[in-house]
Every structure is written in C-alpha cells, then in structure tokens.
C-alpha cells in the first residue's frame, strides 16, 4: 500500500492507494504554522484501518520551503561571489551580506585570474563578526571547474571551522551563474529548517510503525528519497502544482496533449502535458522573483479560484484576488464563481437560496438580474483562464531553438483535452473545453488527484555531462563530479559514461531500480578546429530518468 500526502496552502490532501484502487482519501484544512501536524493528522486518518507495516511507500509534497521563501524566513546567510568578467554584480542588490572576490574561470574551465585569498579572509572575518554562520559560495563557470569555489570554502573553514558552507557546484551544475547564485543562497537559507522538519516527520512516521521508504516530491514531478532532500531543499518548492500535474498524468496515462487545470479555492494552477509528457519550464522555478536552477513544470498560477470573492467595483465586475471563505452555498460570506455556476445550474452544486441571496447583493447595485450577473461572472472567469492557457501555448511555441532542424520541425500545438483537478473542477471544465474546442476530462478522483500524483510518481534524476577531449576531462552537473576522458573519445563514449554515472548516482540515492528507465535528452558534439585541423571535441550529453509513474501502476479504478 502507498500513501501520498500533498500539503497545500488551504488543504492537506492524502490518499491510501493499493492495487489500482484508492482505499481511503482525506482532505483537511492546513495549519499553516504547523505543517507537521497537518501531515500527521491526514496520515493518522489514512492509517485508521491499516497497519503501518503494510505501507510500502510514503510520498510527501509540502509547501514548507515555498512558504519559508515567500515569508523571508530561514537562516541568515552571507554570499561570496567569484564572478570574473561580465555583468557588474555590485548591482545585484538582493542579498544583504554579499562579497565579490577576485578570481575568474572561463567557459572551458581554465583559470584566467587567480583567487584573491586576502579578500576571502577579510570577508570571513566580517561574516563571523556579524554573527552569521552560513555562507553560500558561487563562482562563474564553476560547473566547468569548481576549484575556486572549493578553495574559497577551504580558506574560510581553516579560520572558522564552525561555518556551514554551501558551494554552487554542489547544488546547481547547469550554466547560469545568476540562477546558481540564487539556488545556492536559498539552499543555505532553507537547509536547516527543512532538515528539522524532514527528520521530525520521518521520526513520526517511523513511530507509526512504517518502515517503508519516505520520498519527497520535487518541482519537476519526480521524487527523491528523504535523505537526499536534505541536500537539495529548494527542489521541494512548487511541489503542489507538480503533484496535481502528476495526478492528471496518472489518471490519464496516454499520449494526448492536455491542459491541466487545478482550480483551488483561491488560485488556479495551469500546466501542460504535451503528447503524454508533462512540460518543464526552460527557465527554472522563480524564487522571490528571481530565476533559480530548480527544474520545475511550466506552470502558471492565476489569482482566480472557485471561492474568489465576486464584487462590483466602479462599474466593473471583479473576481478575486482574495477569498473570504467558502462559496455562499457552502456557508461562505459572499458570492463566488461557484455560486454563479450553482445558480445557473439551479442548485446542482449546493443549496440554491444562499447563492441567490449572495449574488443579489451585487446584482442590484450593478443594475443586473441575478442570472445576468452569474453569467457575466462565469464568462469573465473563463475568459481569464483562456487568456492564460493561450499564453502558455504561445510561450511553448516561442521556446528558443538553436538548431535549424529544431526550428524547421516545430509545429503548433493544440489541446486535445482539458483535465480538471481540484474540488471545483467539475463545474468549470465543460465550459472551458467548449471554448477551446476540445474534450473535458474530470475523474471521480479529481478532487484528490494531487495526493494520488504524489503517491505514484517515480523518482527522477537528470544528468548533464560536458566533456572536453582536448583538456581530457568531463564534468557532471551533480555534486561537482568530474572525471578524465580519452582524447579520442567519441559521442558514444560520452553517452556510455553518462549512463554509467546515472546508474552509480541512482544507486547511491537508493533509486537504483529505476536506473534502466533512462532516456537521452541531449546529444551534442562540436569539433574544435584550431588552425585548419581538429584538435579536440566537445560533447554535451543529457540523460534522465524522466517524470513518470512507479513500476506496475496502470491507472486507478473509479
């Protein structure tokens, strides 16, 4: 039996799944200042008729790190940057304790300026004097050569052994110094808070007699074992939208192109599944308005939900962005889009009179009939959703390509289907589908699809290998792993090495049984010509265990 729990902003959802059936499901309000209690409340409910020892897997998706970052919580961190030539980072005014030190590495990993040791020592003194004990170090091109980051860490530790230090190459090995800086910094900010939450939850789960694997859902729709998450706390952001996207994926499991629409109380999350594959964002998740290196789904959030407050303001109808409570038909204080649908459907969702009364309060000063107001509310909400959906398709079509082949073979995408997730989905989906001219899909388990998505998502692992046969070495984007390569390496050798490394890292992380489900997503080779002859080759190989469902999962029976 598997357990999936998704701690969302408003509700915590959980499912107990076994053999294509959902045995139990649970929805309870989230206690925002005690997420652990929220998790355990749902867990205990799910375990009511089940022994802990029968549980084979627990997957958690939580908003802890997202909340921490949104509220500016976490630990105080000093930042040391080794940027070399380029943008003037003195203008990067987001981090209070930031030091820029001399030293430079170029795109092929060659050191072009030595590190300035005394600058680092001075920074160390100031950081310690300010009472800060966590440091993030980020160097430009550190994925190609991490020696400056390592050296900086050593210099600091030799004087101040108590410092906790995170280096950029450990957390983010893709090329993008700004994103690496952001990711490294926020990893340091959230690491301790996440670790104490994760270990407490783990202890509580063990105390319930569950000795199964505990996995954490990541923004990319895959899971990672809890111990691994201690090193990558930022990977847990935006796991809510990831959970609902994977839920939609798990409920359909086909090769269609779908828009996933998760209509919550206050917000709606949108995601795309293109020909059966959930679409990732090419830019990395946003943290505090800055791009990070965290791989996430290309999701969009709208401040528009089933419970958004409907108002008439200055001659205009407004919906949201706030929620004052549930819909009027469920005892809430004001009219909501849910009430509008309830009215037009003559009480199909809940008791009609409260919806009618709430809408009347707005309709009268607006000079509309109740039915007109309800229709306008729905039209406006649908129009907003459609604009965002079209925007997402356009953004996908305009994703940059760097090869002629990619550009020529691109075709426009259209949705085959909308998949409704969340409690309010059933009422809205047919309306949206009609406007998009596609089918609508709402499953019996749509309201708790997010928790199901968490329960059945498989682990993911993505690896980039960059090899330079002239310099005879290669780098991975994970943990700063490097190795040497032969000067006559061919692309097949680079791919073989990437495959071996994927297997090795998967085993270390305890997800070795998925190591054979890899795919190559990038295979690039460049001849380096100096003078008029080839002097070496550069290879970029990407290999991944893509998001998917666990072995043996074939869908759920309603």
């Amino acid at each position, binding site marked *: 039996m598997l357990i999936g729990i998704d701690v969302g902003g408003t509700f915590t959802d959980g499912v107990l799944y076994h053999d294509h059936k959902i045995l139990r499901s649970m929805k309870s309000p989230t206690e925002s200042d005690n997420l652990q209690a929220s998790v355990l409340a749902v867990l205990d409910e799910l375990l009511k008729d089940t022994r802990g020892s029968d549980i084979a897997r627990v997957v958690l998706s939580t908003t802890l790190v997202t909340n921490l970052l949104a509220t500016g919580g976490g630990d105080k961190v000093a930042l040391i940057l080794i940027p070399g*030539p380029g943008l003037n980072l003195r203008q990067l*005014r*987001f981090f209070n304790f930031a030091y820029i030190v001399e030293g430079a590495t170029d795109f092929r990993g060659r050191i072009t300026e030595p590190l300035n040791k005394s600058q680092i020592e001075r920074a160390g003194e100031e950081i310690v004097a300010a009472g800060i004990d966590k440091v993030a170090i980020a160097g*430009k091109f550190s994925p190609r050569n991490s020696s400056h980051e390592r050296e900086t860490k050593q210099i600091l530790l030799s004087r101040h052994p108590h410092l906790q230090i995170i280096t950029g190459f450990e957390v983010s090995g893709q090329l993008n110094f700004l*994103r690496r800086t952001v990711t490294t910094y926020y990893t340091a900010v959230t690491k301790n808070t996440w670790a104490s939450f994760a270990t407490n939850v783990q202890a509580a789960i063990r105390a319930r007699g569950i000795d199964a694997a505990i996995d954490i859902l990541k923004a990319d729709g895959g899971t990672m074992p809890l111990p691994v998450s201690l090193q990558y706390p930022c990977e847990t952001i935006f796991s809510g939208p990831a959970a609902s996207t994977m839920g939609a994926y798990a409920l359909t499991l086909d090769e269609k192109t779908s828009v996933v629409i998760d209509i919550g109380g206050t917000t709606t999350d949108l995601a795309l599944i293109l020909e059966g594959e959930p679409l990732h964002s090419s830019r990395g998740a946003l943290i505090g308005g800055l791009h990070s290196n965290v791989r996430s789904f290309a999701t969009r959030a709208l401040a528009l939900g089933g419970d958004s407050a409907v108002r008439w303001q200055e001659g205009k109808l407004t919906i949201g962005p706030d929620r004052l409570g549930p819909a009027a038909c469920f005892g809430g204080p004001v009219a909501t889009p849910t009430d509008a649908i309830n009215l037009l459907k003559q009480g199909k969702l809940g008791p009609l009179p409260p919806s009618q009364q709430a809408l009347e309060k707005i309709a009268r000063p607006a000079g509309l009939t109740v039915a007109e107001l309800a229709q306008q509310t729905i039209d406006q909400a649908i129009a907003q959703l459609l604009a965002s959906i079209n925007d997402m398709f356009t953004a996908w079509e305009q994703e*940059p390509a760097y090869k002629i082949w990619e*550009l020529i073979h691109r075709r426009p995408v259209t949705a085959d289907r909308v998949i409704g997730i969340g409690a309010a989905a059933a009422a809205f989906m047919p309306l949206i589908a009609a406007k998009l001219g596609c089918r609508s899909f709402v499953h019996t388990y749509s309201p708790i699809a997010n928790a199901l998505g968490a329960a059945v998502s498989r682990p993911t692992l993505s690896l980039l290998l960059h090899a330079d046969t002239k310099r005879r070495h290669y780098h991975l984007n994970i943990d700063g792993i490097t190795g040497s390569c032969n000067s006559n390496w061919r692309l097949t050798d680079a791919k073989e090495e990437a495959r071996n490394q994927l297997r090795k890292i998967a085993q270390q992380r305890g997800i070795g049984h998925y190591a054979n489900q890899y795919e190559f997503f990038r295979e690039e080779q460049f*001849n380096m010509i100096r003078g008029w*002859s080839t002097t070496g080759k*550069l290879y970029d190989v990407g290999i991944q265990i893509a998001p998917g469902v666990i072995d043996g999962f074939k869908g759920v029976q309603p």
Partner: protein
Amino acid sequence: MNPKTYNRPLYQPAAPYDQTGLVFFPAFDWAISPTHPEREERLLYTRDQIFEEGIMDLPQIRQYQPRLAELKDIARVHFCVPNVAAQASEAHRIAAGGALVIADAVLSDEIKNGFALVRPPGHHAMRVAHGNRGFCNINNEAIMVEYVRQKYGLRRVAIIDTDVHHGDGTQDIYWHDPDVLFISFHQDGRTLYPGTGFMNETGGPLAQGTTINVPLPPGTTDEGIFYVLDNLVLPILDEFQPELIVNSAGQDNHYSDPLANMSFSARGYAILNEKLAPDIAVLEGGYSIETALPYVNLGIIMAMAGLDYSNLYEPDYRQNRFKENRNRMQQLEKIVQQQYHLFQRRHQLTAQGRPTGEPFYQRQRHIYYDTDQIREQQLETLRICPRCPGYLMIDSEAAGPQGRIKVHCISIPQQACSGCQRAARDHYAKMRRRPPEACAYSYLQDRPRDTYQQYDYHRQREQTL
C-alpha cells in the same frame, strides 16, 4: 569615452518598450565546411558565456525566436540565380528571418532595440547572387531594410557596417539609393579581403555621398574608432536623420581575430554600440571564437540594454595594451575630414554628376566569389531620371565550377517615378518576348508593387513571388 554611471539595480523591472530584443541563433547544425571559420563551433563559446552570465533572465532582455524569411523577402533585394531557393538554404533564411523578427518587434514598439545574433552572415552578398562570397549568400541587413520599408513605410535608413571587412555587398545594393546612408569602416582594402571600400567609392551618379567608406589603417584601436564615430559617423547621422539605424555588426576588428589585423577590445565594442545607439544590430563576421566573440557579443548586448559593462573584459586584456599612435591618428583625421566634406556636398555632387542629355549611365564591373570560385561580369545600366533615382538594369554573366550562365535583371526602386516604373515594366515585357542572346533568365524586381518576377527562357515559364 566615459561609460555612463549606472545606479539601476540589475533586476529592476523594465517596461516592455524599454527592453532589448535578442534573437540568438547559433545554427549548431550548419557549416560551410567542417574546418571553415564559418562552422558549427563559431558561436558555441558565445552561447556558454551568455547562458552562464544569465543575461537572458534579466528583465531588460527579451528573447525572440527566429523565423524563416519568405522567398519574397529575399527576392525584394536579390536577383538569385537561378532562383531564391538555390541561393538561400534554410540556414540563410533563418538568419535573415532572425533579423526580420527583431525588426518587427522594434517597429511595433515591443522593444526599444534589438540584436539578431545569427549566422550565417550576409554583408558581402550583392544584389545579383550567383553563389557564396566572403562566407555570405544573402544580405541579412538589406533583406531586413527592404522589408521594413515595404511593411512600415520607412524611407530613410542608415546602415553602419562595423565589420573589419568592407561591406561590399551592402554597398552594392544601396549604391544607387540616396535614401539609404551606408557607412562602412573597415581595415584598408589594400591589406584585407575584399580589397574594396576606398574613399573614392561614393555611390552612383544619382546617390552621391550616401555611400561613405572609411578605410582604417591596420592596428587601429578603440581610441581611433571612437574618433571616427565622434567626428564623422555621429555628426553625419545627426544631419541625415534616419528613421532607423542598423549596425551591421562584425566582430573581427578585435585584437585577437585570426583573419584581420585590428586592435579593438570587447569594451570598445560596447562603447561603440552605446555611442551609435543602433535600433537594430545584426551579427556579421568575427572569427576569434574563444578569445573575442563571447566577450564582444556580451558587450554589445549589455550596451544595447543599458547594462553596466564596466566589468566586461577579455581574460588577456590589460588596460593601455593598445595605444593609438600619432601617425595613425593623423591618417584618421585626414580621412574623417575628407569624408565629412563628401557627405556635406552630396546634393551638389549628385547635381553635378547627373550626365546632361544622357538618358542612361553605364558601368562595367567584375565580381569574384571567393568561396564558390565564380567570376561574374556585370554591365549596369541606370536610367538617369530628373525626378527619381531611376530604374536599374543589370546584365550579368557568371562562370564557375558549375558552368556559365547569363541573366538580365531589372530593378524598380520604391521611390521610382511613375514614368520610370512604366518604362521598366515595359522593358521587362519586351525582354520576355525577345531574349537577349544566350540569356537564361530575366528578372523584374518591382518594389513599388512588391512583386518579383522571373522568366525562364528555356522552359518558357514565369515565376512570380
């Protein structure tokens, strides 16, 4: 050369119209030949540098996707022999299309300016295109300029060619056009390909002084180029008042370029673009792929986006490494003075140069296509019209490895008077009926009607774009 002082934080949100557009199309699957300077690897390190820099995440930058230029967009500029598809592969159409995407975004006020960082380049491609010259098949800037003139009704455009090689293709295309100011500064043609771009190349008889060449002595530094900008290019632009400024942005003036001998730096390029403030920059040459391109491209993007470039430098750059010497400076002063004088007398020269009583002006030319080893003979015949820049006829005969071919081309400029338009169309109709001897194709480039025809004498078939 004082860089601006910058107080804006790096991530300050930019209003859309305050953004700089960027098309980055490195064509990682295209090369002239595996070891050719114009090969897959050319923009690889530039990609690494701009990706690692994270510059495309900044709110000041908006990335665009290139598109394929239409065949018609190319026929608006070139007489491609035998046809457009034969000269413009997908790679060429994407490079030109990248420039068109940027032009559309600038002209519709989506962005304040933009850079088409594309390859293959184009500025050696002339009006008649029999093959590849100087790594170029079709002229990306000219295709863009004619597109915006057609679509947005622009008339006066300035193209500043900052590539180290003379922009002989662009010069050829605008030789007879008084509304396009073409200024090229480049290493002296006596010492570098294509061996042209001398001060006495000043434009056709009806477009005198809107083609301006500035041959630079080998070794010219940032300081020299700023002198030319401040004392020649910027004052001329001020007087000419173009509706659009285009930088035909080669990067081979760099001190490390393997094919030329100049001494510009990456920061010099940034300052150049800040001073010039082009609406659109289009990448041309530049073959120092590791030492220059990553830094120069970054510098151009930063300058156009108004980002502080004071921390931008090549790893081996040392301040005062290159100093302008007195001798070179004196040469530059003379060139600047003479060419500024030329520009100011342009109307007078055009009036004087108008042959009295002669209905046509002719010139004979020989053009060599280095890449494809084609030799072309041209006879240009320009209608000397008192009311407009006149229509142009070109008899072109090319001989190369593919054999020999002769074509006849007629071009009606946008500004042509109704009389010239009629005469040119009648001439094409006549040519269709009675082919000149051994001529394989006749072409009519009718810009006022935006239609482009070609007649195949062998198949007796006409194609219209």
